[in-house]
């Protein structure tokens, strides 16, 4: 059993807003792990189509021992599910590290700034700012796309709330949201030559950490990271590379054509197709990718996304050995593993 999630149950009323340790932006576990220099692991939770809080806990259960923080998606792929806010509030209460996702697709600046305060009050320490997929790919294609902010102006807005203590209207906040700010980047889709510059813009707008989309093309990712290092960005922002298991060649092809922003090279699909056990091969591929990514200078962690396959996340993280460093450290210093991340 690898225990990296310290149970830190949070009672919003008794505990009050999370106080950041000195030198930190937030009280979030993810920030502590990254600043400490550990190779961090975040994992995506598939939100339930349900109003039952126990369904949220059930979905989070397989991730609890292997993720420093759990990302609750915000209607990803423009499909309706339980809100990221609801999930994060529940999970932080029972002690999980969480990342609230905010997409610009569904809410305007009035709703979003209010949500940021609400989330911080409920114990959310990290927020991921996303543009969001177009409404057309989801289950409600007739919806009105909002896009009042874009991910970059959203980052700058939350940074203004946090660091200057005001809304975008200039009205003062009596208690600013202490949050660790994240953004996404997709290193494997056009314009490949400008993706690092776009990342620079996000860093300038306020991003503290980056979670990338799926990376299946290591050559593209390496080229991207080389540009990132040329710009010195790896010293300004923590980059978590996105990985996930492909369950079959058919699923991979489907994802490639139907999910926006997924690039899977033919060679990868051929490899899965040629395997006797395609699911096992997909898992092996994810493990290999993680091990290779870890060696790339400037990669601070991985973000594991396994749609409806949370049980695989545990195996992938455990077998990849990326937590061994922390476990050994725990053994040497005789720190109980569950205290590691604090």
């Amino acid at each position: 059993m690898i225990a990296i999630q310290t149970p830190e149950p949070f009672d919003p009323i008794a505990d009050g807003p999370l106080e950041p340790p000195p030198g930190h932006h937030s009280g979030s576990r993810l920030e502590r792990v990254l600043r400490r220099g550990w190779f961090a692991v975040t994992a995506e939770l598939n939100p339930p189509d349900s109003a039952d809080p126990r369904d949220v806990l059930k979905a989070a259960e397989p991730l609890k021992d292997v993720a420093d923080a759990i990302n609750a998606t915000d209607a990803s792929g423009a499909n309706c599910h339980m809100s990221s806010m609801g999930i994060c509030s529940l999970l932080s209460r029972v002690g999980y590290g969480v990342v609230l996702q905010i997409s610009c697709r569904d809410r305007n600046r009035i709703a979003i700034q209010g949500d940021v305060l609400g989330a911080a009050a409920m114990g959310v320490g990290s927020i991921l700012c996303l543009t969001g997929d177009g409404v057309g790919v989801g289950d409600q294609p007739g919806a009105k796309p909002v896009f009042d902010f874009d991910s970059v102006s959203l980052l700058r807005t939350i940074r203004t709330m946090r660091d200057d203590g005001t809304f975008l209207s200039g009205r003062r906040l009596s208690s600013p949201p202490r949050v660790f700010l994240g953004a996404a980047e997709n290193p494997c889709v056009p314009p490949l030559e400008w993706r690092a510059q776009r990342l620079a813009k996000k860093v300038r707008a306020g991003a503290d950490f980056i979670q990338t989309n799926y990376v299946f093309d290591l050559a593209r990712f390496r080229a991207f990271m080389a540009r990132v290092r040329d710009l010195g960005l790896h010293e300004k922002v923590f980059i978590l590379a996105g990985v996930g298991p492909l369950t079959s060649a058919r699923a991979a092809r489907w994802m490639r054509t139907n999910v926006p922003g997924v690039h899977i090279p033919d060679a990868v699909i051929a490899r899965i197709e040629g395997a006797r056990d395609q699911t096992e091969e997909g898992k092996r591929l994810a493990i290999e990718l993680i091990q290779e990514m870890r060696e790339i200078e400037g990669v601070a962690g991985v973000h594991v996304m396994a749609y409806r396959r949370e049980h695989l996340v545990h195996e992938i993280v455990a077998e990849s050995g990326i937590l061994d460093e922390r476990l050994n450290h725990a053994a040497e210093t005789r720190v109980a593993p569950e205290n590691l991340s604090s």
Partner: protein
Amino acid sequence: MYAARRFAVRHARFFERLYNRFEALMVALDPLFARLGYDRLERPVAFIERAIKGFLFDCKMCGQCVLSSTGMACPMNCPKNLRNGPCGGVREDGSCEVRPEMRCVWLEAWEGAARMPRGLERIAIVQPPVDRALAGSSSWLRVAREKAAERRRAMAPPEPTAVSPPERARSTLAKAFRRARRLAPSAAPLAAEPEAALADQAVEETTSVFESPTRQPPHQESGEGRGGENGGGEDRRAKHRGASAP
């Protein structure tokens, strides 16, 4: 018109020069506009602006033109209205995630910017969210009025007066999105340059385009580091790297 719009991006350099000249002319005409009344001019000028820019750039009349910061590709043609760069859904062949029949606006924008003398510097500016209240208004007139006012202010700073709530909102925006204000005035929020923003700008202007002056929340000044791993705010990577390896 799609063809004209792609032509404009291919000749971004030329159009930028044309635009700079035109802007100077508009600013020079400020006294005339003021005499005729900006309010009275608004409708006819907006009508002409819509016709010309609509043809050339597929302009959507957002009222805060950023063409000079987006390689002369109008970002309001992006179905997600992104003003700060492409989304993560651009297709392998460079077409748009939402409207595959169109090339991603931001691929055009970056190519256009690379052709303009200061294009790459300008495309790196963090743009504020669009002020939807300005939709449909003439950004030409706005630039003329704002730039002329700025010039007047530079010569004789106005007496400080009480700040109205909308003015405060705009000042906050102007401060949060500093460089947008300086380099692309028509894109930035309508507001007098706040003192603090001016000071900050000087910092941001001198650092490289890719530098972000690290801003630390005030509470971080105090307090002791945690076992040496969370020292000062500036070089946090050194801090988190240095502390790694048990």
